[in-house]
């Protein structure tokens, strides 16, 4: 008697919940009740993973929140120029490029550029952020000032309008690197000096106090959007209808979406589910098997393999300070043991073209022209397990197997037992984990005792900088910059910033080419120093070829695939008009970075 009653109650409860659910389900289709109507809102995700912290533009890059933090976000604060990786051109933003040479870079400030409080963007603003390193060594942009001796300012007439002309004079003695200045110019976002100089003064010139000042939507900005709200689940930007660039850069048009929402997802699957459901319009995360989502309106740059435009090279860096990875033969054997096709097909879902030996991406973008096929054939190592075994045998390495036929360990030519080599990679990054797993399989098949060494991401970064690894999976390029591919070579090969194992280095994590050792190859540094100053294409090509040859012979690192700079994915369920290989009006990046910001003016609501 009682039982029936209780049972009915349970079923009724379940039905009730279901009803609430379905009620909600119908609701989601309409805009009613939402402060951010779907038809006016663009959802982009993949940059911000943690809780929003601060929108303070002076805060340390790693500590601040999209769109203020890391990356060349142009939505709230803007740089002087935007770099278009498709054609290598510099597009105007707060400034426009007048000229660049090995000695100086000249930029005119856009005469119409104004801050949201009405003040004009001035040379003082540029000098404030570029030269702040001369006042505060630990300012986020402190490094900028090391590359120029001064920024000269003069008043000029530009099409009849008076404006300020900035000349960045290249520092010749130490850095001598105009490429990096260009990188900085496209990546450093200008902040209103009249606000922040005052903040510094108010806080007794204490930068760390200023960095802690909370900043909200009322902050003085220059970009087309301002921060509207931020919770742990999302950051909301609202369009600034009085954005100066609408008239100056976009012929009076406004960006189409009134709101941009960056949902903060915590797992990879969340992105793909949201894209498939049409709840997310653009994303930049690795989503496997993107072709399975095409039926749900999820698109990429190419509509077939490799789907993405390559722009970055994940590599294994070997620790060259200890055996056996200090032996270039061993490193070359490793390079021959890894099945790059498996990496391509299984780990990165086929999102890579077939790769070639060397550090230059063959046939890709602006750098493709520096690739030399003959060199690659002659000096490079491709997947060839037999060759790997042969190189190892020739160099005196022997593999010892257990009774059941599995690899036990390896000995060097003196018969010394070699330790297991761990490939360090952040745990939970599924595509990277898969790369490592495939590599381990290949290496072990070739008789090399290697194992997966997945560590928490938080431990990965310090280990990388201090050289605390045997083999490390890393990606030298964060973005396609004016300095690419020089920056990649520099990141992998330079020993100009040499510091021993245990201290932090931001490049050459494997401590290749120790300047104090007998084997030091001065050519590497010579070429790395020379390339940024070269403007003759033939000479440049020659220099890259020489550098790439050294890379292939010495194999300080092993390139694994050609991946995109950003996994640019979009859904056409709500918004159309995205750039693709068929309509490449902007680089394949979400409309918040550099030259791709203009996508916002091109989008249309889907029918």
């Amino acid at each position: 008697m009682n039982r029936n009653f209780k049972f009915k109650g349970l079923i009724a409860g379940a039905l009730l919940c279901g009803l609430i659910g379905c009620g909600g389900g119908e609701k989601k289709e309409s805009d009613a009740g939402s402060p951010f109507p779907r038809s006016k809102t663009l959802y982009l995700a993949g940059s911000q993973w943690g809780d929003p912290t601060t929108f303070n533009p002076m805060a340390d890059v790693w500590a601040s929140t999209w769109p203020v933090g890391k990356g060349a976000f142009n939505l709230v604060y803007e740089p002087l120029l935007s770099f278009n990786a498709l054609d290598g051109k510099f597009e105007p933003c707060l400034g426009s490029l007048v000229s660049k040479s090995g000695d100086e870079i000249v930029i005119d400030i856009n005469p119409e550029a104004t801050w949201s409080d009405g003040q004009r963007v001035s040379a003082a603003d540029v000098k404030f952020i570029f030269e702040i390193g001369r006042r505060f060594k630990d300012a986020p942009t402190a490094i900028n000032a090391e590359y120029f001796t001064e920024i000269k300012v003069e008043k000029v007439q530009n099409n009849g309008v008076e404006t300020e002309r900035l000349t960045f004079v290249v520092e010749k003695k130490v850095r001598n690197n105009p490429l990096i200045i260009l990188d900085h110019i496209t990546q450093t976002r200008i902040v209103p000096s009249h606000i922040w100089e005052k903040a510094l003064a108010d806080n007794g010139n204490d930068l760390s106090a200023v960095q802690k000042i909370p900043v909200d939507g009322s902050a003085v900005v220059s970009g087309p959007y301002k921060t509207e709200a931020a919770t742990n689940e999302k950051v909301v930007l609202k369009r600034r209808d009085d954005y100066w660039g609408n008239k100056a850069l976009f012929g009076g048009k406004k960006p189409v979406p009134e709101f941009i929402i960056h949902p903060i997802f915590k797992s990879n699957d969340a992105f793909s589910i949201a894209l498939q459901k049409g709840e997310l319009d653009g994303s930049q995360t690795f989503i496997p098997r993107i072709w399975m989502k095409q039926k749900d309106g999820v698109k990429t740059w190419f509509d077939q393999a490799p789907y993405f435009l390559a722009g970055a090279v994940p590599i294994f860096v070997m620790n060259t300070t200890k055996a056996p990875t200090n032996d270039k033969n061993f490193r070359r054997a490793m390079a021959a043991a890894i099945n790059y096709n498996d990496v391509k097909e299984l780990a990165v879902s086929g999102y890579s073209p077939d790769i070639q030996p060397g550090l230059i991406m063959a046939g890709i973008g602006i750098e493709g022209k520096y690739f030399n096929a003959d060199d690659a054939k002659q000096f490079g190592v491709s997947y060839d397990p037999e060759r790997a075994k042969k190189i190892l045998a020739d160099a005196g390495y022997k593999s010892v197997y257990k009774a059941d036929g599995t690899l036990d360990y390896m000995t060097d030519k003196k018969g010394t037992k070699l330790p297991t080599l761990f490939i360090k990679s952040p745990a939970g990054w599924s595509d990277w984990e898969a790369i490592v797993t495939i590599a381990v399989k290949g290496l072990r098949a070739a008789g090399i005792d290697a194992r997966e060494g997945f560590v928490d991401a938080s431990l990965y970064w310090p280990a990388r900088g201090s050289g605390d690894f045997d083999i490390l999976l890393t990606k030298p390029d964060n973005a396609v910059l004016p300095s690419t591919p020089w920056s990649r070579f520099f990141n992998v090969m330079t020993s100009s910033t040499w510091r021993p194992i245990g201290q932090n280095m931001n490049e050459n994590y494997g401590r290749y080419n120790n300047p104090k050792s007998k084997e030091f190859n001065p050519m590497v540094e010579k070429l790395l120093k020379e390339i940024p100053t070269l403007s003759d294409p033939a000479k440049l090509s020659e220099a890259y070829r020489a550098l790439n040859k050294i890379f292939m012979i010495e194999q300080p690192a092993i390139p694994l695939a050609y991946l995109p700079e950003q996994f640019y994915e979009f859904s056409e369920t709500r918004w159309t008009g995205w750039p693709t290989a068929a309509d490449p009006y902007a680089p394949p990046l979400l409309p918040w970075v550099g030259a791709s910001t203009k996508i916002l003016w091109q989008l249309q609501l889907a029918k």
Partner: protein
Amino acid sequence: MLKQYPTLRYILQRGGWYFITFVVAVAINFYLPRLGSNNPVKIIMGNTSQGLSSEAVKEKEEKYLKEFGLVKVKNGNIVRNEDGSPVKASILEQFISYVGMCFKGDLGTSFQKYPKKVLDVIKEAVPWTIALQLPTILFGWIVGNVLGALAAYKRGIFDKVFFPISLLLSSLPFFVFGMLLVYQFAVVWDCFPAMGGYAGDLIPTFSWAFFSSAAYHYVLPFFSIFLIAAGGQAIGMRSMGIYELGTDYIKYAKWLGLKETRIIAYLFRNAMLPQLTGLALSLGTMIGGALITEMIFSYPGLGMAMLTAIQNNDYPMIQGCTLLITVCVLIANFTVDILIGFLDPRVKAGLQIGKGK
């Protein structure tokens, strides 16, 4: 001592015990995250030192060392060795400063969400976790116990069907169950959201739109814990019920010709008491489990906060979360202890209940 006030004595006794447990828990809480030899400042520096000169790096490092209490500080300045390097604080010193700060209500600054305070992060997350866990656990407990008691009392076909189902449900790993729910309801049928605490186009406010959206997002996570929690409770209640059913007082009540409803009430009430203790004790396990549920559903609660903190070795955050969970579990246990003290006269008299097991 206090013999004439058994209730007070009982409360004080339990309270004292829980205080000792609390102290030990705090110590464990502090020590365990430090098991790994990871220096948190190194972790931050790994992110932040990009492009800085070595002096700048050093300056920055010391700033963080000081802020996180990893070096000795006197009058606001870092105590230094003769060669100028800062003197490291020992574990004990760190512990003392940690306890001191805890008492001031300062759980420290998150490494990963720097400069956000741990307490602020927790404050944002806790309502979600409570909203998810409290009703699920209580409702699951009640439904599970009612069904379990009925199964025990009625036996027969009801029990034969119901019992294996409960058993099967509680064999299912709850996090996988969550995944299956997502797959079926969010992916295949697309009738419930797969993740999040509320719709992407809302900001938490006191509005109908927000609450209905939160309720909609609540359904799958709720069921993923509820069904399994209820199943587990039902099994426990069933075996307690069968145990109580065989006791002399139930037989006596039957022989006295008491009404069936009254006998069920006896049964339920007495079998419930050990279940109540069980509930308090398993709160910790349940919360732990629900942490993973939050992960599956990207639910913005404490579990999510703690998991991200673990992945980033964010000690202050981990400590804050575990401390909070421990305190909650302790308080829940204490409450149940006191409650049982009132509900069950045997407890105050110093007798063990639940002789069965």
